[in-house]
């Protein structure tokens, strides 16, 4: 099997979870090539080679500085036919999802979306797909002209740099006009860890209510000490304690960190839908009957306003 992997770029740098898609592809076959689209992405292309891609197709053009679905889908379709790959893989980021959906529909090829794992059955790609919000798993395959799949962030180990180098193939940008004008870009603050990429997440819920500002300050401090991202329940978001981008769950983000610390979160099914695939779950809740304890590995029954700062002090001393 030959797999082409989309290495998403942002401001000339690779989006980290793309290396996980590359790592997964390399675990299935040694016939792996990469597709890098962007502006000033020569370093990313070289890095894709170092991380194990045999051939790297590069479209480096000012018109590609930002992801534009019309342009990127046309480029990807061109490279897909040029490379003769049997499969095309991306990380299931928003852009990765959009690209695969567009290319897949255009070719009437199926997309195995948001897979937790991928395996190969001869030349068939088999995706482990969660459906019903993680309540059912299926083995998905596709019968289209090419097999497309997206891999959920943190579902595979990233391909590591080896110092190898690839054949770099420079590809002419597809002659397609964009229809979307980007008027403003606001990037996340430097150093902010995204929920979907985080190893550790500290989340707050309605349990902070008696002093929401202090509650999320304490949660933020613990997160800083642990190098963690800050999450939240919908109740905390809807009450205006914290921005929506922190929401974990059914109508927020689906995360799978190594460690998820839920502070003052009851554990409603819609919250669990976003985090119950975490490796280790810790619950801090003053109600020992809270449902979160039935999915937690560790817990403290207590007031988060005491426990969270105490954890922070303890962690500072031990890390």
């Amino acid at each position, binding site marked *: 099997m030959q797999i082409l992997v989309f290495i998403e770029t942002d401001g000339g740098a690779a989006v980290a979870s793309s290396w996980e898609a590359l790592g997964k592809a390399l675990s299935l076959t040694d016939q792996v090539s990469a597709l890098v689209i962007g502006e000033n992405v020569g370093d990313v292309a070289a890095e894709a080679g170092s991380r194990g891609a045999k051939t790297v197709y590069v479209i480096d053009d000012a018109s590609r500085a930002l992801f534009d679905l019309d342009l990127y889908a046309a480029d990807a379709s061109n490279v897909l036919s040029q490379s003769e790959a049997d499969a095309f893989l991306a990380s299931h980021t928003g852009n990765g999802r*959009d690209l695969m959906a567009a290319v897949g529909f255009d070719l009437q090829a199926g997309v195995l*979306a948001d897979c937790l794992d991928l395996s190969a059955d001869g030349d068939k790609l088999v995706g482990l797909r969660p459906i019903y919000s993680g309540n059912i798993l299926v083995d998905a395959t596709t019968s289209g002209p090419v097999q497309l799949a997206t891999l959920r962030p943190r579902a595979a180990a990233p391909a590591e740099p080896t110092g190898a180098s690839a054949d770099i193939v420079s590809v002419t940008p597809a002659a397609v006009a964009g229809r*979307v004008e980007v008027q403003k870009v606001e990037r996340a603050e430097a150093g902010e860890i995204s929920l979907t990429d985080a190893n550790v997440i500290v989340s707050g819920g309605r349990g902070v209510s008696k002093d929401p500002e202090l509650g999320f300050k304490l949660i933020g401090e613990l997160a800083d000490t642990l190098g963690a991202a800050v999450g939240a329940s919908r109740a905390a978001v809807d009450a205006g304690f914290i921005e929506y*981008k922190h929401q974990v769950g059914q109508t927020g983000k689906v995360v799978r960190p190594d460690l998820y610390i839920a502070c003052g979160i009851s554990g409603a099914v819609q919250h669990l839908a976003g985090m119950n695939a975490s490796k280790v779950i810790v619950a801090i809740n003053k109600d020992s009957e809270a449902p979160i304890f039935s999915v937690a590995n*560790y*817990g403290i029954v207590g007031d988060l306003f005491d426990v969270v700062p105490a954890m922070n002090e303890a962690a500072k001393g031990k890390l």
Partner: protein
Amino acid sequence: MKYLVCVKQAPDTAELPKVKAEEAASGELSIQLVVNPWDEHALESAIQSSEDYGGSVGVITVGGEKAIDALRSGLAMGCAEATLIEDTEADAWGVATLLAAAIEQMGDVDLVFTGQLTVDGNSGMVPIALARKLGWPVLTGVAKIIEVTDDSIVVERVVGEARLTVKTQAPAVLSVIKEIGEPRYPTFIKIRKAARVKIPTLTASDLGVDAPAPVVQMDNYRKPPARDAHVQLFDNASDLVDALLAEKVL
């Protein structure tokens, strides 16, 4: 301005854990079905846009006969008309093909709103496929409508950790996230009115299309392994941190 919202009848999220593997495989669920929650935000956003910029809102779904209930919810929220495309076989590409055919037949749709994901299928593929079929631009992750004119729209999108302000031409397809606005509660009067609206039912042959046969095959439906549910409780934070260090997750 004519807005059209694509909705799906989907399981009530509170009951999702009760879905059995056999039910998921057959598609015949015994649990409560409601409007997919992401689509409620799409309904809200389209109705709000029609109030801010003028125009009317329609709601459409592809599904079985029961999916009429999802359309009635849309009508009760403020949509003026509803259409059911009856089909229970189509996968994402099929649904997109049927919706596109209906939209082409309507002929006057300027903006299509969808939710970004369904809570059952979970693929998020339909809005993009629909736009490709129509040949229209698509904006996903829409968090805010900034301006609507006769032939353009300006919105704020969330893409990964970034926020983008973008403008595109209408007609276009948008897929929205929760931040765009909480769905309004229908009034009793509107619910009563919605119950009386006649909802036309179309089939693929009425639309003059063949929905493509599914290209994704799903096998071996199963429940995920249950979490090892033995919580170990600590009295103090220091012991908890020690346990996490021993687990090598810190």
